[in-house]
């Protein structure tokens, strides 16, 4: 006689749940073997259920529970109603059993007496051929692994009989075991079935699979995992941790408990590298919650102990082995869907262009090779040691002034990175930067161009045009390190930021590059904020919410670096100072804030020197130099009417934003060089404008100029003009028209430099009589004034910062009789240096200086070290006080700010690390952003198709060879034409994702494939894209190939195919 079956159905209130419940009830009535009793537990308002006749007809009772009740708790509520000797069937409102389901399940229990649990085959309610679950096992470390989820059901797993566990939904539990095998509420809704299976196994029983019993489930049922990625990550993780603490031998529990937080940290790193930032907070939440749930752990352990008959070794055979895991490891190969857009850096000629630029650079800056440090202009040496470099980059005592403790300029961080690259002699890193500036600019420009064109020749043109920007060359010959660094970073910002919405990897990289870019040129912030807003609007208007979140993240590192500085300046009512150029403030030549100056800027040159033309040819001829920019500008303007007009117009907008920044910058005076106001350097704005200009020109050349010969001609004319324009600047070094100097390695006399070697805290009071009769007084710590130690909080100060040394400085030089050495020593000053202003010294300044020398000579307690080319130096006889240690509060502020900044930057770095999965995802999409359906297709060419007469021309501008050209071009055309396929692609990858996710072992460092939690995002991302496609691409923002439903498309794609 068959045993009684008591079904427990857990339902949630609500109309759609109710509809599903009715379907489940229907399915129950259609069973070939109907359950003997049905108990319905409604988690919430059960009125609808009570009123339903169908339910009333079958359910022996309806229990109402609180609305937050979990599946396991609801089952427990129903347990008392089960009569003895009944097997329990666990169902939810969404689990509709197929007619023979219960018969198969109970049959399985009857056939195998050792089985305590029979589990059905769960299939998707919408697609019954897709498996949702058929058996679950776990790894040696306890992570649950679905054995068949997501696969297409071809009965390929039906031979499997035994499993360690199964999904809780639809489980039939033998009556004898019912009392001990109840779902554990402490698991929070995940892995309950696995846990039951393990306990059954420990009781000497087993779990049998009944593949014949099919139950349709929907993904949002009460017993399913939550749909939200973060919530799902939380429940699966807390279930895993709970099982770990519950299963472990008693002696190991404290050890496991201790590893919870370190593991959370480790897994955070893995999540970030795996581009799953959404899992980070659930990870920590789960770890912390699990740490304090002593009661739940004890209860679970008690339950296991109470029913345990067999040893833990009995479950070992059913665990999944490493080998099996590896066999199941799906590296996603082929998930690109055939659309492989390779980079072709080497085969596309990019490497040769970079090499060529290196040769030009070495030719232009030949003697630089022998210089140990670079000086002149706004250049200063760097700190001697890496530790000091990084100390300058953190909140704390600044390297100048007395008792000035405050935020570091983010630029100091950039300098620290740069100096660390040549750790032995950081100052030499600046020389290397100058030598490598041209090739690096070509490299950056080339990569930025990959976002606009697939043609190798055009990419090279983009790189070269970027490196020949007049503003960049001016910055090089005038020694402006921040502007040079900015120009090198900007193309990478373009390269990463335009695809930041696509992937976390790009967003992570873009966020770091953005922080570095703004660190070099805070004055670009308004323009970049404008472009960012535009991107957000575009992304939101297409409902790419995940993309919007990634764009939001882009600002995080920048905010972390700048907020302390902004707060500091706002508190001092000097908000404009936030935009001040970082580094050494140099009152060098630059365009004036009048119409003539703006005309100069509009023509692309930041100084009246016209990038060396004025020096070389005189200003009359030099005034025609902007004509050499004209071809590029005309090409860029044509981008507005090019087929890819959305991208073209956006790039023109970038140019306008850059020009506006430059126009504005020359009128903003917030920095001071020894009391002389210095305007913001407009060249950085021009760099941004240049990015738009070169980008626009590339859009025109790539899409509008369809005749290969015309394209070659246009590129030749524009490129040659730029090359000619660059000649004076590139030869400036040999004809001595630059301000660059060999060294000095220290701005202070060698005596001080020697005393302070290794960045000892030696301070020098530097007094410089000014041409207007004033006196500049500053305190320099260390062996030299250094680039990283410069601080905008001092260079933009509108009132004295820190301990005011003005009175002391004047008294020192006056007739006042006082204990000057004592007062200086109490401030920690070791040396007094009397410097003279750079350039022409006025009589007032000289008289003041001569008087000052006499006054200091007559002071007791000062030992004259000597007159050097850097000024007259005195040493204090008194023993200077040690530099004031920061107070406890200051130290606290300092370390907390530093830790937050490091965490954010580290997270961004981890996100930016490319993985196999992220590289594959990048390859899977066209690198070009902002494609429009109207542009002509670049179709693959075969050798036999290339007519002799245009073969040469085309080869120079298209990718090198027709052979290599083929697959890529085909891929891109597919990207355009078959965009509608893309969502399918994404869904495919999403579907296959759980498999790939399944095999990230906790200890695995390599190959973290995109996980299940991420891929559905892609799917979600992809679907709206194609849905929103009829709206034409209207911006550079990041529009992946917008697929279209344009009926013309098939024609277009077919026609060329046929022609071919």
């Amino acid at each position, binding site marked *: 006689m068959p045993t009684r079956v008591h079904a427990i159905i857990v339902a949630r209130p609500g109309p759609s749940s109710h509809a599903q419940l009715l379907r489940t009830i229907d399915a129950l009535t259609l069973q070939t073997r109907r359950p003997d009793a049905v108990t319905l537990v409604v988690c919430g308002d059960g009125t609808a259920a009570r009123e339903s006749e169908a339910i009333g007809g079958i359910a022996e009772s309806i229990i109402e529970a609180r609305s937050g009740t979990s599946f396991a708790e609801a089952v427990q509520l129903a347990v008392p109603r089960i009569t003895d000797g009944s097997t329990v069937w666990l169902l939810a409102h969404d689990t509709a059993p197929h007619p023979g389901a219960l018969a198969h399940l109970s049959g399985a229990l009857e056939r195998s007496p050792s089985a305590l649990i029979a589990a059905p085959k769960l299939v998707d309610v919408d697609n019954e051929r897709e498996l949702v679950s058929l058996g679950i096992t776990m790894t040696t470390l306890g992570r649950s692994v679905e054995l068949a989820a997501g696969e297409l059901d071809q009965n390929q797993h039906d031979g499997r009989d035994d499993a360690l566990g199964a999904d809780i939904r639809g489980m039939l539990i033998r009556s004898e075991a019912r009392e001990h095998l109840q779902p554990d509420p402490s698991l929070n809704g995940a892995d309950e079935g696995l846990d039951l299976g393990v306990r059954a196994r420990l009781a000497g029983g087993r779990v049998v699979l009944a593949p014949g019993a099919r139950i349709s489930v929907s993904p949002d049922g009460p017993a399913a995992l939550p749909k939200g990625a973060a919530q799902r990550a939380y429940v699966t993780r807390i279930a895993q941790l709970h099982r770990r603490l519950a299963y472990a031998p008693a002696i190991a529990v404290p050890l496991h408990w201790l590893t919870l937080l370190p593991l959370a940290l480790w897994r955070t790193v893995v999540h970030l590298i795996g581009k799953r930032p959404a899992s980070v907070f659930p990870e920590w939440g789960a770890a912390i919650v699990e740490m304090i749930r002593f009661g739940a752990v004890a209860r679970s352990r008690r339950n296991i102990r109470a029913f345990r008959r067999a040893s833990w070794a009995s479950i070992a055979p059913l665990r999944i082995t490493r080998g099996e895991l590896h066999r199941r490891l799906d590296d996603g190969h082929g998930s690109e869907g055939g659309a492989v857009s390779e980079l072709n850096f080497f085969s596309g000629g990019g490497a040769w262009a970079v090499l060529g630029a290196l040769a030009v650079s070495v030719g232009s800056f030949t003697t630089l090779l022998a210089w140990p440090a670079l000086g002149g202009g706004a250049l200063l040496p760097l700190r001697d040691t890496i530790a000091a470099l990084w100390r300058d980059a953190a909140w704390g005592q600044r390297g100048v002034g007395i008792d000035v403790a405050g935020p570091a300029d983010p630029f100091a961080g950039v300098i620290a990175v740069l100096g660390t690259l040549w750790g032995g002699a950081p100052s030499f890193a600046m020389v290397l930067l100058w030598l490598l500036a041209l090739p690096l600019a070509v490299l950056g420009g080339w990569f930025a161009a990959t976002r606009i064109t697939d043609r190798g020749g055009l990419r090279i043109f983009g790189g070269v045009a970027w490196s020949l920007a007049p503003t960049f060359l001016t910055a090089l010959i005038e020694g402006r390190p921040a502007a040079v660094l900015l120009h090198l970073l900007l193309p990478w910002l373009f390269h990463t930021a335009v695809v930041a919405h696509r992937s976390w990897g790009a967003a992570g990289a873009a966020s770091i590059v953005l922080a570095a870019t703004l660190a070099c040129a805070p004055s670009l912030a308004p323009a970049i904020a404008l472009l960012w807003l535009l991107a957000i609007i575009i992304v939101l208007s297409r409902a790419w919410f995940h993309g919007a979140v990634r764009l939001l993240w882009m600002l995080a590192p920048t905010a972390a670096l700048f907020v302390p500085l902004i707060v500091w300046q706002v508190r001092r009512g000097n908000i404009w*100072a936030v935009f001040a150029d970082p580094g050494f403030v140099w009152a060098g030549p630059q365009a004036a*804030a009048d*119409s003539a100056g*703006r005309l100069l800027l*509009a023509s692309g040159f930041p100084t009246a020197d016209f990038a060396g033309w004025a020096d070389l040819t005189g200003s009359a001829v030099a005034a025609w130099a902007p004509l050499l920019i004209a071809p590029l500008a005309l090409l860029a*303007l*044509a981008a*507005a*009417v*090019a087929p890819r007009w959305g991208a*073209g*117009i956006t790039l*023109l907008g970038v*140019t*306008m934003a850059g*020009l*506006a920044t430059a*126009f*504005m910058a*020359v*009128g*903003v*005076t*917030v920095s*001071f060089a*020894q*009391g*002389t*106001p210095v305007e913001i350097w407009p060249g950085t704005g021009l760099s941004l404008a240049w990015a738009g200009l070169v980008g626009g020109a590339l859009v025109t050349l790539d899409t509008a100029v369809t005749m290969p010969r015309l394209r070659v001609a246009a590129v030749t004319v524009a490129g040659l003009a730029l090359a000619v324009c660059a000649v004076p600047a590139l030869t400036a070094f040999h004809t001595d028209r630059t301000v660059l100097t060999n060294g000095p390695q220290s701005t202070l006399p060698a005596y001080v430099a020697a005393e302070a070697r290794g960045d000892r805290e030696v301070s020098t009071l530097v007094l410089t009589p*000014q041409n207007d009769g*004033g*006196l500049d*007084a*500053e305190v320099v710590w260390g062996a030299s004034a250094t680039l990283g130690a410069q601080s905008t909080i001092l260079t933009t*100060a*509108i*009132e*004295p*910062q820190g301990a*005011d040394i*003005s*009175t002391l*400085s*004047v*008294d020192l*030089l*006056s*007739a*006042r009789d006082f204990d000057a050495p004592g007062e200086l020593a109490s401030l920690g000053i070791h040396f007094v240096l009397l410097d003279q202003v750079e350039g022409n010294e006025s*009589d*007032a300044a000289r*008289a003041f200086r*001569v*008087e000052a*020398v*006499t006054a200091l*000579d*007559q002071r007791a307690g000062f030992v004259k070290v000597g007159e050097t080319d850097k000024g007259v130096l005195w040493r204090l006889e008194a023993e200077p006080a040690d530099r004031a240690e920061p107070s406890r509060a200051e130290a606290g502020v300092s370390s907390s700010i530093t830790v937050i900044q490091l965490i954010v930057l580290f997270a961004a770095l981890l996100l930016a690390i490319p993985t196999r999965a992220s590289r594959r995802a990048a390859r899977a999409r066209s690198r070009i952003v902002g494609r429009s359906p*109207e542009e002509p297709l670049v179709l693959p060419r075969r050798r036999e198709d290339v007519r002799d007469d245009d073969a040469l021309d085309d080869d120079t501008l298209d990718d090198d060879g027709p052979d290599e050209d083929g697959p890529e071009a085909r891929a891109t055309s597919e990207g355009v034409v078959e965009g509608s396929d893309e969502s399918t692609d994404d869904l495919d990858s999403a579907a296959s994702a759980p498999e790939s996710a399944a095999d990230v072992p906790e200890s695995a460092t390599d190959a973290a494939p995109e996980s299940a939690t991420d891929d559905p995002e892609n799917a979600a991302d992809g679907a709206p894209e194609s849905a929103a496609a009829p709206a034409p691409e209207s911006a550079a923002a990041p529009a992946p190939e917008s697929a279209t439903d344009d009926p*013309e498309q098939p024609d277009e794609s077919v026609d060329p195919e046929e022609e071919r």
Partner: protein
Amino acid sequence: MIQKRAIRVVAIGARLLVGIVIAVACVAGVIAAVALPWPGTASEPAQVPVTPSAGDTTLVCTGDFRAVGRNSLDAAQQLSAGTPDLTVDSNGPREDSALVVPELEGAGAPQQFTGSAEQGGVALVAAAESITLRDDDLSGLAASACREPHTESWLVGGAVDTGTSDLIILSNPGDVTATATLTVFGLEQTSSTTLVPAGTQVSVPLASVAAGAQDPVVRITAAGAPLRAELQSSLIRTLDPSGIDLQDTAGAPSDSLTFAGVQVVTKSADSALTVVRLMATGQATEARVTVRAGGEDVHQLSVPLESSTPTEVSLDALEPGTYSVEVEADAPVVGAVRQTTGPGAGSDFAWMTPAPEIRGEVLVAVPGGAKAKIHLVNPGDADATVSLAPTTGGAGQEIDVPAGEDVVVDADPQTTYSLTADEAVHVAVALSGTNALAGWPVWAGQAAQEPIIVYP
């Protein structure tokens, strides 16, 4: 199909139109942005005006007038031609001492007065000396105030022609040896150094350092200790002595010089009685010279100046009287005005150096020897009231100096006045008599030191 094509043509047409409009708008926008004014913002650098603390005030006097060439065996030997008459007073205790003059044997020592700053803040000390000589080789009136030493002094005056025996007198009141660097600006620039031991006065013949210079200007830079530098000049025309003078530093180069107390005793049409010597110290510029008296411009001329090259121009045809001379230039200049009682033998001359601005209280010592006047010049825009009272007591007077005008006040000889000005004025003391002429500007003591702007 045709319909589709039509839609497509319209779409492309619209797109092209929009694109062209945007491209044109970009160009027009840039042109407009270039032409239109842009807002800007400028902040002031952190700056702290600090008034240097006053130290002790040390005045150094010249001492005996030196006669050169009286010993036919040793032409370079200097003898004392006479000891000047000294007038001195101070508002507090002062310490009097004397310098050593190794070159003059048996002569009276130059006096040195130190007013201590510890008593009631600022020490005001004033001293002046005058000497009238009627010798065969020296005749005329020489008078000057005793002055503080400086690290840099400019001597604008003197000549190296035949008949002149000008001496640069360097006094070191300090405790350490000073090194004086004498840079002579003429047609060419030469430089030499001289050691001045502590507490000693030495002289350097101008001809020895400025040989060949037409109108020399000498810059004396002191290292080690500040020096008082002055120029003692004398002139012999043919065989007749034609004047002696003592001239002080002309002050720091400035793009605006104001001379007060420039005296014209006789009007002469043919010979240059009043001459101004100017030199641009840094860069070439053009100096605009304005001679003023009684609030009116009497004479104006413009002088192109080359860098570091002294230039002399004469101020012709001035009526007898007391004038002020203003020099404006676009670059810093130094200058002095030479006044002469008349052409021909037996006359006297005097160099007047620029008078700095004075505000607040100073002491003015007026020596004997000739009729003395105090010339008050107010080139500013506000009326000034100057009170003048003898320090010995007695009736003081309040003098109104309207804006842009000047006032001449007679002064008693051998009297020290306390002068207090509520607005910036330029003041000079002028002495004149028959074939006797002298004058010097009144300098502010340390009490009126300008604050120094410090950029921390």
